[in-house]
Every structure is written in C-alpha cells, then in structure tokens.
C-alpha cells in the first residue's frame, strides 16, 4: 500500500486550521457475496484522517458494496470496519454519523432545501433556531442560500446534489460517503461540483470515501485512488503514481488510455518492441514471471510514443481526434496493430489520413502484459 505522506501531512494541516475532526477508517479484509456473485473478496483499505480516497472501477467491481458496508446499509460476510480504531460492524446506519450523498437525487420531496439540510440536526434534537441557522450557513457554503425555501422539484439536478452535500455535512459527519454523486449531472455542472466538493472537503478536513467509475473524477479529486476489480483492490496510490507507475496491466488500461504493442521478451529484464529494446518496468501482482516470456504485449501511453512523418515509415495515419491542445492520432502499424499517439495539435494539423509515419519508443521502462 502506497501512502503519500506529503499529502497526508497537508490534509492534517488543513484539518487543524479548520478545527475539524480527524477520523480514521479501516476496512479490514471485507468479503461479501450476493448469491453466487462475489461482490467483495477480501478488500482492505486504510483511510487516514482527513483523507479523500476514491474507489474506482468498472461496474460490478464491488466499490459501491464497500461504501454501503461502511455506511451500514449492507453487512459484510467476513471482515470488519473500524472507525477511529473501534469496530462498528454492529452499529446501525442511523447511529454511525456518516454523511452520505447518493447517485440518484435523494432529497426529501416534501421538505424545502433548508428543512432537508436541517433534517439530520432535527434527528439530533438540535433546537429550531440553531438548526435553521446552521442549515442556512451550510446552504450558503454550497452557494444556495437564495434557494433555501425552494422544494427539490424547483431545483436543478446540480442544485439538488449541492443541497444533498450540505445535508450530509450538516451533521458534521465523522466520515463523508459519496456514491457517484456526479454521474447524473451534465458535464459542465459535474466539473463545477467536483471542485466544490474537493474544496469543502479539504476545508473541513472530513475523511471521505468517494466511489466512482469515472477515472477523471477520481484522479482529479482524490488524495489516493484505489482501483478495484472483481471485489479486490488492484492498487491504491496517489493519482500521479497510479498513472505513471500502474502496478498491473488492469490498472494501466483502466486509468487513462493505453496502447498494446506486440513485443518479445529478451531476458535480463529487457523487451524488444518496435525494433528497439527497452527495459521492463517492475511488475505488479497479476502476472507471474512464467507468463512473461516469449511474445508479450507492451503497454505504452499515447504520450509515451514518438512519431515522425517519413516516407515508407512503419505506420499509416488512419484518423485524428482533436482534444484541444493535443490531437490523438490513430496509426495503423504493420501486423494490423492500431496505436494512438498524442501530438501537439499545431503539429498534427498537417497529418492527413494516409500519411506515412514512423512510430518509435523512447528508451524508458515499459509495462509488459501477457499476450491475451
């Protein structure tokens, strides 16, 4: 498990200045089956006080189940959940002090925004005046003070999720749980809310578990991202670490775009690909040495390949996708392999489909996966 100590220290600092609360969370060896489906298979994660950990993975990988077990809506078959060192497995959801924001709009339709935010305080028997004051402050914090007396149906999707966030934070939760809170929103709102959630979370120093299938969301918001697959944690690391040094081929291909190029192992930790021999990156858990002999796939990111226009090169440009400052160029190599190469848009303008190019690999360590 990789812990980014610099980030943790940072989060701690913020929490202290905000006068917040530092709650640590440990999910220890959680397993959960639904009938024949194994949703969680020995999942262990430690979340430091004030940290935002994102669980990322394809649908059905168990990330939501993990969050729901922490919330108290599901129970684990085996394993335990520790909050501040105390096993809370037997504590019902209502007494766990966890604020949750759901994927679908979860505001109570019969209450206006202010009463929605104040509901948790009401359950805690906070007096009316104090409750309204606090709920008002929280609405103000998410920028919705003018909408206090509006009912959920009068609010847009993004506004509803902001009220839901304020409602979850109103109870000063020990842990904030976010279950794909942005996936029902359109792109622009999603981006704004993403930043707002992160800013608030850092300001309050609330330990947060965030579940998403959107890698961009996870990478941009989290202190650490845990990539899950089939109920297990493949890797948990800081976003840059995850992107640059994926532990397994699955992580490499799930996070960001990855090219697969045919290569051949040479022994001594070297692999030949595209007529050059480069060192192999130290491998994670999912491939044993035996699998990695002979013909293999070499994994390279689009920005990890270089390309030059040249007569009779080793590839032909087939398509271009404009992504703003860079353009992703699709190139057909011999052997019916298509790779994507990123090129500055200004340079890519001249590359018409059919142009002959030469694709090469700089001599840097690469990730290798068994040929499927």
């Amino acid at each position, binding site marked *: 498990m990789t812990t980014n100590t610099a980030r943790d220290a940072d989060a701690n600092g913020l929490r202290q200045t905000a006068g917040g609360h530092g709650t640590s969370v440990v999910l220890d060896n959680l397993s959960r089956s639904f009938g024949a489906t194994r949703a969680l298979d020995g999942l262990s994660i430690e979340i430091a006080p004030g940290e935002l950990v994102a669980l990322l993975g394809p649908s059905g990988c168990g990330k939501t189940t993990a969050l729901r077990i922490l919330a108290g809506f599901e129970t684990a078959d085996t394993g335990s959940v520790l909050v501040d060192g105390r096993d809370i497995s037997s504590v019902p959801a209502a007494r766990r002090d966890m604020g*949750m924001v759901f994927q679908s709009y979860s505001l109570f339709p*019969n209450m206006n925004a202010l009463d929605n935010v104040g509901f948790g305080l009401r359950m805690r028997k906070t007096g009316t005046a104090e409750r309204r004051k606090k709920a008002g402050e929280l609405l103000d914090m998410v920028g919705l003070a003018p909408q206090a007396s509006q009912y959920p149906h009068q609010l847009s999707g993004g506004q509803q999720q902001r009220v839901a966030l304020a409602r979850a934070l109103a109870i000063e939760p020990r842990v904030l749980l976010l279950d794909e809170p942005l996936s029902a929103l359109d792109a622009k709102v999603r981006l704004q809310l993403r930043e707002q959630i992160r800013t608030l979370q850092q300001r309050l120093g609330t330990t947060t578990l965030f579940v998403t299938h959107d890698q961009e969301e996870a990478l941009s918001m989290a202190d650490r991202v845990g990539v899950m697959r089939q109920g297990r944690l493949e890797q948990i690391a800081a976003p840059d670490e995850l992107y640059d040094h994926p532990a397994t081929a699955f992580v490499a291909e799930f996070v960001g775009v990855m090219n697969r190029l045919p290569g051949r192992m040479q022994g001594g930790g070297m692999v030949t690909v595209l007529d050059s021999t480069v060192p192999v990156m130290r491998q994670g858990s999912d491939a044993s040495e035996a699998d990695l002999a002979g013909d293999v796939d070499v994994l390279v990111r689009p920005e990890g390949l270089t390309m030059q226009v040249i007569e009779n090169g080793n590839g032909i440009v087939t398509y271009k996708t404009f992504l703003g400052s860079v353009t992703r160029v699709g190139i057909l190599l011999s052997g019916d392999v298509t790779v994507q190469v990123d090129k500055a848009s200004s340079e890519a303008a001249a590359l018409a489909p059919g142009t002959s190019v030469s694709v090469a690999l700089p001599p840097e360590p690469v990730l290798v996966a068994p040929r499927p």
Partner: protein
Amino acid sequence: MAAVAETQVVKAPRRAARQRAEQPAIWRWVVLLLAGVFFLVPLIVAFRFAGIKAFGAVISQSGFASSLGLSVRLAVVTTVITIVLMLPTAVYVHLRLPGLRRLMEGITILPIVIPPVVLIVGVLQIAPGSLKGTPYLLALEYVVLAMPFAYRAIDAGLRALDLKTIVEASSSLGAGGTTTLLRVVLPNLTTAVLSAVVLTVALVLGEYTMASLALFQTFPVWIYVNSQYSGQISVAASLLSLFVTWLFLMAITVAGTRRSRRKGGGAVTLFTATRQETRGNL
C-alpha cells in the same frame, strides 16, 4: 431597428404555434360536449321526472337518515382499515421484497374476478363472532373489495418515489425506522393515500350487491327498496346521493391536490398519483 426586426421574427412562429394548438382545442370541446350530453341528459331527465317536491320528501322519508348514516360510517371504517393494512404492506413490499411486487399485484386483483358471494362466505368464515350480525361485517367485505384500487393507488405513489434512496438518506442522517416512515415516507405519499381514500369511499357509498345480500339497509339498498313504493322519491334520492358523493370526492381531490401541489406533487386523481418531473440539469 434591429430590436423591432427581432421581435417580429420571434412573433411569427409563435402565432403559428398558437394556431396549431387551437385546432385540437376545438376537438377537445367537441368531445367534452358529447360526453357532457351523454352524462347530463339522463340526470336532467331524472331531475324532471322526480320534480322539486320529491327532494323535500326524501329527507323526511323513513329510513333515509339511518341508511345514509350507516353508509357513511361504513365508508369511514372501511377506509381506515384499508389504509392501515395497505400502506405498511405496500411500503414493506417496495422496500424489502421488490421481487414480490408482481405477485402482490396479482393477489390484490383477485377480489375483482372472484364473485361477491364467494367473498361474503370467505369473510364470514374468518370474521370474529362478535361482528357477525352487525353491519360492520360489511366493512370487512368492503376492505376486500377496495383492496385492488387502494393497493394500486398506493403502489403508484411508491413507484413515483425513489423509496430506497430516501429511506437510506433518512437513516444515514440518524432517523430510526418509525421516524423515517412518519416524517419522510408518509408525507410523500399523501397524494397516493388520498387517491386510495377517494376510491374506497366511492366504492362503499355505491355498493349495492353485498349489502343487499347481507340484508343491511345501506343507502343504495334503501334507494332500491323505496323505488318500489315511490319512483319519484327514489329517483330524487339517487340524484341526491350522486350529488353528495360527488361533492365529497371533489372536496378530497381539491384539498389533496392543493396540498400536494404546494410540495411539488401531482394532482390527486382517481387512478394515479402523478408526479411532476424534476427539472433537468442546471
């Protein structure tokens, strides 16, 4: 100048749209008129046959007040039992046994296909002895009869609600089961529950077969019995009961709709609890 040109451009398509909207409006009125004639002509004819004097006579007729009173009491008892039974059942099925929803729909429709006599015998078999011989036995039978309508009304309300999510949200905020049910679930089902009430009341106030088989003089039975002595008075009584029932249902509907509209819900109608769509993103 530019502004003038712009408003003209905007106005032209609007006028076209208005014309397009007006055309079906004419047909709407035609249909409404035809339906009005179909429903109102018999009422007017009945009214003319009965004469004004008959209405005064109805009220002084023996048995009028007692039979109407019995029907209203039965309506109240039936409605209370129906809601108390159906509401928690429907909520529980939606929340914990969603797989059984289709089965529940099938079961609750049975009273419509089973002949009334069978239902009466069935209820008699299980009814407590103290109830037998009292008209409140009828209430139990009406509960069975009202079940298909009441369950469907409540079911429709629950479908319009993301029940699982709001229950979980409530519980994560610290509310226990009962608090969640009373503060979160029930207030969002008022429209649906009122629909169920309207349907149940309408059913009880108009039911004849069972009451007459069980030899109780409810209001519909009284009307029938009296029609054998004086046609005019019984027709006047029918019209009166129609009007009273209609007033009653309108009162529930209007009150319920006003209440639910305030909270963003839909209109209370006899068969569905509609819900306004939430606005899209942003």
